[in-house]
């Protein structure tokens, strides 16, 4: 019996809440109903926008990635050349350079001594 009384009291109060809906809310509900019935002008869903943005980023990356790949071969020969010089028996090159220098120094010294004499 107590349950039924409580339930009736709650229902009475809930109906009071329903009856006292603000006029601005009634207007917005009517607007929502009109939009739903016409199935137009729906509020944009943020998840759809996020998905669209992610797709655009993905497509941009796919388009830009091959372009980046094409630009790299122009740089590679220079790098490869530098690496080739550096990697090709560096000790022999330095030895050759120093031998030339000493050979020139010997000639220079010999000419200098000859001139002094």
């Amino acid at each position, binding site marked *: 019996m107590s349950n039924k009384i409580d339930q009736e009291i709650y229902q009475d109060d809930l109906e009071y809440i329903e009856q006292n809906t603000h006029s601005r809310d*009634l207007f917005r509900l009517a607007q929502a*109903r009109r939009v739903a019935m016409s*199935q137009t002008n729906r509020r944009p869903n943020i998840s759809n926008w996020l998905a669209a943005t992610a797709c655009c980023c993905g497509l941009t990356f796919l388009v830009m990635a091959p372009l980046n790949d094409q630009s790299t071969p122009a740089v590679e020969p220079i790098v490869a050349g530098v690496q080739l010089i550096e990697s090709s028996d560096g000790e022999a090159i330095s030895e050759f350079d120093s031998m030339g220098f000493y050979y020139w120094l010997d000639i220079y010294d010999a000419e200098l001594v000859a001139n002094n004499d």
Partner: protein
Amino acid sequence: MNTSGDKQNECNQVSITSEQKQVSAELSYKTLEEFLKFIEKRAFHMARLSTSHTEDAHDIIQDAMYKLVEKYSDKMPTDWKPLFYRILHSKITDYYRRKSVRDKVFPWKKADDQESEDYLAAQLNQGISLSSGEPANMLLRGQHAQQLTNAIQQLPLRQQQAFMLRCWEGLSTKETATAMGCTQGSVKTHYSRAMTRLRDILGEYYEQ
């Protein structure tokens, strides 16, 4: 034993009331627009009580209405109500999921979520209550309604849903189970717990 008897008694009483309401409701609308007009205020307040936020409640209602018309306009008018409430409660659950993520990402926005002003208090202060009668009675009724609102907001979400669908909307246990996406046994349990909790919270206040 006594508790289960009370629970059964409570459920039977609600079933009778809901059947009566169902019959009258079936006569109230024939088209989908009439149905939405019939249900919109109650559904809005359910969403508002669940979210504690008027703007979010409006968004949820609009989405639910839109989806019902989009997906289920070809269904029988008797199916619209459980379907609409199923959509509505899915939207409310989604709202809570999004809110929990948003609270983790933007914790400083958490404080702005609650509405500062009581919904009914503003109406009463302006003296534009639609109820007729003595001002003192209107004020008392408004206070009771506000207390009930606060009490409902203290309930867990599933108990809120079960209580509002059964007590307010007058759906049967089966229809409520369809709307909530659970078994009839779960509905009975949620509803019984909700009534007990509300009685605990509001008992003293209502006796005054």
